[in-house]
C-alpha cells in the first residue's frame, strides 16, 4: 500500500498550518520519502521535539503505509512572508 505526496502534505499541514513541506520520493512505490518541513511551530523546540510534531501529524500512516521516512525540520524565519 502506498501513499500519495498530497496526502502526506495534507496530514502535515493539518497539524502545522503554516508548514512548507518538500517531499522527495526515495524509491518507486510511494512508500519511501524524504521530507523537509519548515514551520514557525518549531520555534523554541529542539530537533527531537520538532520531529515528534511531524511524526504526530503522520501517526495514522506511519506504522502501516509509510515504509521509510527521512525527515529534516527547519524553523520558519519570522521575517519570511507566509501569505502575500
Amino acid at each position, binding site marked *: 500500500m502506498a501513499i500519495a505526496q498530497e496526502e502526506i502534505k495534507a496530514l502535515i499541514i493539518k497539524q502545522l498550518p503554516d508548514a512548507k513541506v518538500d517531499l522527495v520520493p526515495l524509491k518507486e512505490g510511494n512508500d519511501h520519502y524524504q521530507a523537509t518541513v519548515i514551520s514557525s511551530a518549531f520555534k523554541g523546540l529542539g530537533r*527531537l521535539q520538532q520531529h515528534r510534531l511531524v*511524526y504526530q501529524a503522520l501517526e495514522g500512516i506511519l506504522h502501516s503505509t509509510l515504509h521509510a521516512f527521512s525527515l*529534516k525540520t527547519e524553523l520558519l524565519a519570522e521575517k519570511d512572508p507566509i501569505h502575500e
Partner: protein
Amino acid sequence: MNDTPEIFQEIKDLIANNDVVLFMKGTAILPQCGFSGFVAQVLKRLNVPFKDINVLERNDIRQGIKDYTNWPTIPQLYVKGEFIGGADIVRDMLKSGELVQLFEKQGLGTLADNPLTTA
C-alpha cells in the same frame, strides 16, 4: 500495544549498562537498512564503541523501543541513557559538529586525525 514490563525493563537495563546503544535493523557488522547502516558507520568512524541491538531478531524490542522512546522509527541512538535521535538527527548533528562535541563531553570516541572531524 502489548509491551510487557519485562521488555521495558530489558530496554532500561541495556541503556543503563552500555554507554552507547544503537537499536538498529541488522547488526553493526551487517546492517540491513541504509539508515541503520549510516549511524553504525558514523559511530565506527568516530571510534565510539557501542552495543548494537538487532531489532529484526527481536520483534518485542522492535516494538518495545518505539513505545519506550515514543519514536516511530529505527534506528535509535542512545548515549549514556539519553535518546539522541535517529539517522536524520545524527546526520544533522554530525554536520553541525554537535555530535562530536557530545561524544567529547561524554569522554567517548577519539578525534585525532579523523577526517570526519577535521576541516
